[in-house]
């Protein structure tokens, strides 16, 4: 496809991320779509939007499944076809990809894709149990291996094989909290120190509290259309020029490597190829930092550095705002928060802001090429998308 736009993003919306007491997921989703509609006055939602895909991981949180139609109703978009996509923490990465399929197929010219999760009203033990559902039931969950536990198994191997340090992992948390402090919608609005991160309590060794992303409520969406129609709705669209998705074994234990996610590498290769973009051409990236080690591994899987050098890359400071390849300017899952179903399209929202120069204090100067990396579970799903500014 040689870098031609697949689809164009003409608007985007994000609810406030954080603890949203007294709100249902559908009400959070309404916040996100309202922003997207307001940003795009030339769009008439009821007339123009022809289909909807919504990422939502768990019906356990609110005892509510059937999310597609539920949130379509609260978005004022009945009676369009509305479908929930589920791929654990990559649920809305999968929604985005489904939206691209829909537009490219010609079945729907304008599609709203988004995601939502309401989590904070549940106890940590309950959330731990629900998130573990993204892993293998009879061999991982049965043996008490939690979701942080799976990434801890990867971290132990990465530390052992490559000499990555717990201090380097802490630096990911420090950087993303620094960025989160520049994002008024982020869950955490405060900076932390390496010492604070290193001295936090152990969740699953070697991962400590500050190595883990947040339990957050939030919703996100973007509106897609055909590139040739984007001008009808906006003068500054963002084009999606590459889209990759791959699967892998549900059980971490069956994989050849515990220090790299094959699904992410495959998705990235597909997306880079489609976009005709090389890793060194990426100006800004939102990476799935569900744990600090996952950002370090993603640097390697996405080709930002060689295998094993992820720890050195965070230490170099190159992934901080103002440096070579700013990663997670939104604060990432670590500081912006991780309402799991909402994360994939929240990353796309950040790319929309960055590539239309609306990211305010956290704007990456001259950002033209962006990348998002959204991982489900311990890597049984990964989606990678590449974006190009129309400016």
């Amino acid at each position, binding site marked *: 496809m040689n870098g031609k736009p697949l689809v164009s993003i003409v608007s985007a919306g994000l609810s406030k991320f954080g603890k949203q007491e007294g709100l249902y997921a559908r009400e959070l989703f309404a916040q996100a779509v309202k922003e997207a509609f307001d940003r795009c006055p030339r769009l008439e939602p009821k007339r123009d939007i022809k289909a909807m895909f919504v990422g939502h991981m768990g019906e356990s949180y609110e005892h509510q499944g059937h999310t597609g139609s539920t949130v379509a109703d609260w978005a004022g978009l009945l009676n369009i076809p509305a479908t929930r996509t589920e791929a654990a923490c990559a649920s809305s990465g999968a929604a985005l990809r489904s939206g691209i399929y829909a537009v490219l197929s010609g079945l729907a010219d304008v599609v709203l894709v988004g995601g939502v999760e309401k989590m904070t009203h549940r106890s940590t033990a309950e959330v731990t149990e629900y998130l573990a559902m993204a892993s293998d039931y009879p061999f991982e969950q049965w043996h*008490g291996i939690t979701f942080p536990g799976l990434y801890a198994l990867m971290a132990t191997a990465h530390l052992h094989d490559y000499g990555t340090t717990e201090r380097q992992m802490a630096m990911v948390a420090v950087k993303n909290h620094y960025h989160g402090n520049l994002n008024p919608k982020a869950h955490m609005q405060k900076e932390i120190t390496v010492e604070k991160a290193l001295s936090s309590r152990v969740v699953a060794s070697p991962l400590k509290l500050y190595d883990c992303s947040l339990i957050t409520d939030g919703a996100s969406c973007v509106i897609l259309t055909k590139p040739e129609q984007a001008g009808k709705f906006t003068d500054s669209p963002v084009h999606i020029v590459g889209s990759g998705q791959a699967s892998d074994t549900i059980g*971490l*234990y069956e994989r050849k490597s515990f220090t790299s996610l094959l699904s992410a590498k495959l998705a990235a290769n597909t997306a880079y190829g489609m976009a005709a973009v090389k890793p060194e051409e990426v100006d800004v990236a939102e990476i799935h930092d569900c744990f600090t080690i996952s950002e370090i591994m993603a640097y390697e899987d996405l080709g930002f550095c060689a295998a094993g050098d992820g720890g050195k890359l965070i230490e170099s400071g190159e992934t901080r705002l103002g440096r070579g390849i700013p990663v997670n300017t939104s604060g990432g899952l670590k500081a912006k928060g991780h309402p799991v179903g909402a994360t994939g399209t929240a990353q796309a929202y950040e790319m929309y802001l960055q590539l239309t120069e609306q990211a305010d204090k956290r704007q990456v100067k001259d950002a033209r090429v962006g990348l998002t990396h959204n991982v489900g579970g311990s890597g049984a799903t990964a989606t990678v998308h590449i974006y190009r500014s129309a400016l």
Partner: protein
Amino acid sequence: MSTQEPFTIEQFYKFLGQRKLMAGKCTRCGKIHLPPRPLCDECFSQEFEWTEVSGKGKLLTYSIIHVAPQQFQGMAPYAVGIIKLENGIKIPGMIAGATQEQLKIGMDLTIDFGTCNTAQPWPQWPRYCFKRWSSSSKRKIRQKKGSKTEFR
């Protein structure tokens, strides 16, 4: 060894209750499946035979879980790991009674049937965990003889 038992995860756990670690072997392409599967992901054959697998292996990676799901809270903190068995198959599990300091990548472990029971009734099928492979009595004997303690 071959029986009429179905090549399912449930049957795998039933064998564990008989203190046997059993895998399905594809009779067409020879691939060993642990857990067993009803359809070979390599050659799509549905013909298998049961084969008993050695429970000895080496630790590939590990973690001590401190924040546990509700069902396991009474046990936390506890060790988990991924073990590469002698035939090359990898399986995860708890490592009985092991502390952070005792765990080393590459250390020898062996399966221990049914000793990792949770206080709660979930999960209800027989299970396994891993333990260090040199038993304490063996080590004592070696130490008495003045030889180095070896974790073979």
